[in-house]
């Protein structure tokens, strides 16, 4: 098992103002799975993703990733974990505005030892022509593709995406999802996406539905559809 959430709780505030963002959540994800966590705003899906990505720590419970107890890691260990295990794709891309597309990807060389070649990845995401462009000179879809390339550049075990198509028009969103699915299949990566778009779930191997911080449903999709075949 690549990912295990055991009775994970995340609360914010104290006393009367205590808010339960994630309420005793348990799930497991196998290596190579394409997982979609579905839910409405405030369901706790982003909190789950943040904890899984080592950006946040649970209040209670255990998170195990590739046999490592992420929930007990210190700051330094979390940095290493994020560098080696996780690739993150944000809704708003979060590219460094002062770096070109190539440099945003090549930046990973400063983070991990065996970072992949930035030019190769640019080619993979179909952005050779954007190599020397700054984020402000690219469209949203192009920026998200750079973001995906950057995530892949570190050669992570798990790719996490928080509404990766949320800021894109549907056509571009489909292209991005297609790219993600294709790359994951080709490279055998585990992908976990958080979204409120139920259509995306049709492409997933596993769908985890959340509501009010709890898991309502954890189903395995035996026949995931290729992105192209989904009626968007």
């Amino acid at each position: 098992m690549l990912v295990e959430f055991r009775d994970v709780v995340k609360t914010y505030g104290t006393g009367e103002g205590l808010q339960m963002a994630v309420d005793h959540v348990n799930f497991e994800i196998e290596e190579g799975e394409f997982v979609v966590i579905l839910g409405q705003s405030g369901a706790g899906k982003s909190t789950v993703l943040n904890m899984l990505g080592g950006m946040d720590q649970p209040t209670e419970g255990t998170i195990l990733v590739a046999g490592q107890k992420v929930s007990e890691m210190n700051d330094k260990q979390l940095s290493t974990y994020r560098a080696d295990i996780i690739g993150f794709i944000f809704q708003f891309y979060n590219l460094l505005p002062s770096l070109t597309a190539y440099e945003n990807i090549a930046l990973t060389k400063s983070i991990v030892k065996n970072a992949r070649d930035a030019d190769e990845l640019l080619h993979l995401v179909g952005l050779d022509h954007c190599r020397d462009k700054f984020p402000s000179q690219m469209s949203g879809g192009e920026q998200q593709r750079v973001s995906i390339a950057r995530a892949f550049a570190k050669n992570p075990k798990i790719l996490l995406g928080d509404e990766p198509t949320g800021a894109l028009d549907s056509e571009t969103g489909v292209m991005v999802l297609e790219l993600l699915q294709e790359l994951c299949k080709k490279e055998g990566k585990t992908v976990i996406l958080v979204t409120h778009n139920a259509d995306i779930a049709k492409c997933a191997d596993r769908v985890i539905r959340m509501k009010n911080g709890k898991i309502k449903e954890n189903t395995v999709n035996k026949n995931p559809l290729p992105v192209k075949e989904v009626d968007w």
Partner: protein
Amino acid sequence: MLRRKIFRELKMNWGQFLSIFLLAFLAMAMFCTMEGHVIGENKSRATFHKNCNLADLWIYGEGFTQENVNQVKDLSFVKDVGLRMAVTGSAPECEGAQVDIYLERQNVVNKPYVIKGEAFDPKDTKGIWLTNAFAKCWNVKVGDTFKVEYNGITFSKKVKGLIESAEYEYRIADSDTDTDLSHIAFVYMSYDAFPIKEYVLHMIEQGKITAKKVAENTKALDSQLKMLSAKGMTIEDITQDMLYEAVNKMEDEKLADIMPYTQMLVKTTDGSALTREEEIAKAIDDNYAAMVDEDSIMGIARLNSEISQHETFSYMFVVIFVGIAVLVIATSMSRMVEKQRTQIGTMNALGMKKHKVILHYISYSTWISLLGVIVGMLVGTFYASPFMVKLFTQWYIVPGLKAGFDSSYCGIAVLIVVVCAAASYLSCRRLLKVKPAEALRPAAPKQGKRCVFERLPFWDKLGFNTQYNLRDISRAKLRVLMGIIGTAVGMLLMVYGAACNLLVDDMVDLNFQKIQPAAYQMKLSQDVSLKKVDDLAEKVSGELIMSDQIEIAKKPNASSDQKKKESLTVLEGKGLYNIVDTKQKVIHLSKGCVGLSRKLSADMGLKVGDTFYWHIYSQNEWYKAKVGVIYQSTETQGITYLREDFEKTGVQFTPSMLFSNEDLTAYDNLDYVTGVSSKKDMEAAYRTGMEAVNMMVVMMLVFSTILIVVVLYNSGNLSFHERVKEFATLKVLGLQSAQIRKILSIQNIWLSVIGILLGAPLGKVSLNAMMNSNGENFDYNLMIHPSSYIVSGILVLVVSMLVSFMFSKRIKNLDMVESLKGAE
């Protein structure tokens, strides 16, 4: 409600606003401190000068008469004229301290200001009026007897009053290198109180007054000469004994002319001075040696320079601190409004008037700077300025001096606040002009473009940190400029402080190792017989030095605007008293070579080989000389002769000091010796006198640190906030906190290093400018030790790194989730 918003946001951004407060506070406090001193001095001096009826013109000559007074008085623009005889004696009971003696029969101009005791009465032949500051040092009180020695005769008078004089606001004994109030006094006494007969008899004994001189200057021998003439004899036949006997029988009045009035003081009706030279010269048939105004009276001119220096400083500090405050406001406010873009849009959408929104954002820096100037004004006026005034009473004496206040302070305060408000408006107006609908949408990301550094041929070889920081620098020019300027000014102040710290050691080295390296210094009375001191000098292997006041010009008998009042030094070239070149290396004068000080040569446009003319201040005859060498003199400008060459001019060599490496204390009791000091004692006294410099060092270090912390804190804060999302992204990507901290710190260090490199040379320039702004005779060319630069640079860098550390610490606790939330 908006007020609540202001308070809450001030709390949230306390760092930036505290900086603005501090800068406004410092600007105002420094202005009030300096200006309080200037205003206080100006007010007190005006009263002081008025009470003393301070002269507008000082005329020096070999002898002025009552007739001359009447001639000058007849001029329409002349209000009062005074005559006096001025000589320099010593106080044998006060370790031979210098005593400037003023003898008068009438006291209408330059009246002494009585601190304690009776008013000066020029008809009182029993009393003497002594300097208050000197009396304090030696615990002399009204009613005590005070002993004065002049040219070998000693007389005691009862102290009738303790006085100060407008001519002596600054005072320094001729043999001192810095003011020591226990080393110099001036006394006022009746012309008739001077023991003239005793003096003339003593001079006859010394062979310094001959029958010829008596006959030339007085009518005292007229009857004797007639008798001699009847017997077929001439004045040459009068022996020393005969002269002694004749003078001994005479009344004092007859001898008075032997000590003629050498100074005429003129008070004009309209305060005009040297512009009247021609008319006055004509009235007295050009029978004078020099005519000067208060700019040439060191006791007044030095304080004039000091006040004008402080006035310049007061405005300079305002410009520096307000300038940096403007940069801080510009960067802080533009960041704030950019951050509050949607809030501005919301306020506009809710129907809030545009001017209200503008006023709201202007009011941040307005209130803060207003608070800063109010606190600065209070601290400067009530604490710092009185403290400064007290400090300066060590060097300048102006009775009734207290720190002043002027309504112009309010003008400056308003100006500072207005500048801060304007800076705030200018940095916000762009965003405040955006239409509400547009403001409600997030701002478009900044246009990415290649930075200038990318043109570097080795750009691709630079590491990520370097490239990232260089790009950031090229995109945040204002912030970078603020960082560099702030650090440069901080470095300037730090170098200033560090150099001041070594200044005393340097000056001790210059004065006591190079210029006067002898172990002992002996002060000689004016009447000393040259033969006697020559014998003594030979015995102790010493060097005799003469110093006097001269006027120097490019042509003889020049008018006052073409000549300068300077100093003459005559040395014997034995290496016990030296001159130094501009690199502070000792120069040995060779035969026939006359030295000219550097500043004087520059002021007069004279160079080596040029001819100039000079005359002793109190004598009318001019002498020609050629510039042989240019030398550096820190506080007195003038010319230096070798004794051998000087005597060739025909002017009498009258040494005032003897320097020797042998112990001279054994000769302290000789009648022509007024005091002996060891180099060790003089050094110690000099160091004590320079203690105020230490305070300057502390002040500069504190200012420098505050400035650097304020500027770099702001720069760092802005840098951090501008890039917080990027840092969060880097952290999510797995970059260690330490690596990100390094990125942030590296940029701060770069800016600090650039600031250090720019500020370092300015430190030297401004230090010398400050030292030389004390007066036109000042010519400091201080060499700042490499160690001062290194220590200053290290200190600035350490402060910079500490500030950097404060910010980079935030990276560790950076909430990635929170930072990356929200729409772009």
